């Protein structure tokens, strides 16, 4: 039995008359890439928001490493070791790569200079950035160059590296390849694999079926505010997956072995 890192049971979220989450379940296992797919309005972004602390569900409970958690905001989720990468390249373009990696988590100099004068330890941050980017095999020459000099894929690489550097438990990626071209998108997919191989489970939200099938270990299909099923991408075809997602096919009617609940 594989260990469950993060799970949710019976999450409900209503916005006035609209029921965004209608008792959805969720389960993320250690060392996997779990793709979350679904039509618009299927409740996948509400689910991700609940997991990353961006919204508070009305009902249901979330567990992290077997303990019930109640996130009141994204900062609490982050402190609990959950990092989120957003699709719109959330970086400060005129600042350097090293600065972006440590933004909001700067390392101060030891002793008087750091404690009293709040002086930054730029050298240490630079060294750690280099080590970190090398770890993830992101080939960028200089950590002191401004992020705006990078291509879209490299920028997303910086955002992924930042999440991987500080996440203790889970990395959530919200459409990380949506804004990228084919080649750049593949580069980021490779990076997502490396993050998983270093032991961090990844939740990948994506509209891009080929990307999902390329990297996902399991596919969580959201539909009508519930979890329709969880599929095994090695056993199920892309068209059947889309059929389940849109409701054209019931999960029970899939060939044996397709479901990976």
């Amino acid at each position, binding site marked *: 039995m594989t260990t469950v890192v993060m799970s949710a049971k019976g999450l409900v979220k209503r916005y006035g008359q609209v029921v965004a989450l209608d008792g959805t379940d969720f389960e993320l296992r250690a060392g996997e890439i779990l793709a979350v797919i679904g039509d618009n309005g299927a409740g996948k972004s509400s689910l991700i928001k609940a997991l990353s602390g961006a919204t508070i569900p009305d009902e249901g409970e979330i567990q992290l490493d077997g303990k019930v958690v109640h996130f009141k905001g994204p900062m609490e989720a982050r402190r609990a070791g959950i990092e*989120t990468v957003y699709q719109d390249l959330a970086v*400060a373009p005129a600042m350097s790569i090293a600065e972006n990696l440590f*933004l*909001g988590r700067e390392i101060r100099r030891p002793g008087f200079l750091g404690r009293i004068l*709040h002086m930054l330890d730029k050298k240490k941050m630079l060294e750690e950035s280099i080590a970190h980017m090398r770890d993830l095999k992101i080939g960028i020459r200089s950590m002191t*160059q401004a992020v705006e000099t990078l291509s879209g894929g490299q920028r997303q690489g910086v955002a992924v590296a930042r999440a991987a550097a500080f996440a203790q438990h889970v990395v959530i990626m919200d459409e990380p390849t949506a804004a990228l071209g084919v080649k750049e998108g593949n580069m980021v997919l490779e990076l997502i694999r490396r993050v998983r191989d270093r032991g961090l489970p990844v939740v990948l939200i994506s509209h891009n079926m080929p990307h999902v099938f390329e990297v996902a270990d399991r596919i969580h299909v959201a539909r009508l505010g519930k979890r329709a099923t969880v599929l095994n991408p090695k056993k199920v075809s892309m068209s059947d997956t889309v059929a389940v997602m849109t409701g054209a096919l019931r999960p029970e009617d899939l060939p044996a072995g397709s479901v990976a609940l």
Partner: protein
Amino acid sequence: MSTWKERLPPLGTLGPFLALLAACAFFATQTDRFLTGGNLSLVLQQVMVVGVIAIGQTLVILTAGIDLSCGMVMALGSIVMTKFAVDFGMPTFFAVACGIGVTALFGLINGLLVTRVRLPPFIVTLGTLNIAFACTQLYSHSQTVTDLPPAMTWLGSTFLIGQTDVAYGALLMLALFFLTWWALRETAAGRHVYAVGNNPEATRLTGIATHRVLLGVYVIAGAFYGVAALLSAARTGVGDPNAGQTENLDAITAVVLGGTSLFGGRGVILGSLVGALIVGVFRNGLTLMGVSSVYQILITGILVILAVAADQLSRKGGR
């Protein structure tokens, strides 16, 4: 690893400095009196008020804001500190502290309206510009405050370096520029000012309290206007209710000439010092050449448009 081209500061930060050198070279050829120690020291004295205002203004512009109220808030500060000292006989130190307190309070109001009510900085500070001007006129009854205690004008007095008189206030301005430069470069709070101007949403998502950064910037900018108020009183020897009217736009001009982007997140504070010096050198040099002040204003206007155009073009070129 890095080639010499990468190590060279980008043209954006070098450009203003080259412009200043070119302006100095030009005026040196036009008039003999320009390149004398006494005259250069005079330029420094003439720009110390604008310079200190420009420090606050740079901080605000780095966050992609703008502060139109800076000169008027400074005028209010100088009236408050001079009147408190002269009318109430308050010790200079406390009177100055009250003046800086009032300007910082205006910064706080600007900051709260920008962060809590989410009004655009342009509109907020356009409002507080008028409010500060009205408060200044009402409180001073449009009368100049005279007979300042000597301690209040001390920063306007000079000491000798070689054969040149240098004002203490000019030294204070330089010190404040270097202090702010250091803080922006070497502290997390300073880097957060750049980050907020660069991409506020991404900055917020990294867990930085962007509202607190913005609020802090407006309050500190207000405090700088208070220091400028003291320098203004020290330089002119009076509390002038009509001060700050040229400084208001000159400070913004200095920041823009210094290469700080009006779109936020880019710029070096020492550029604003260079920008203030460019404005000062043009005013001084053209005066020495006997050019009427109307033409000086004309040339300053052209300089601002050129500087903003350069900023805009370099941003497009960078993409």
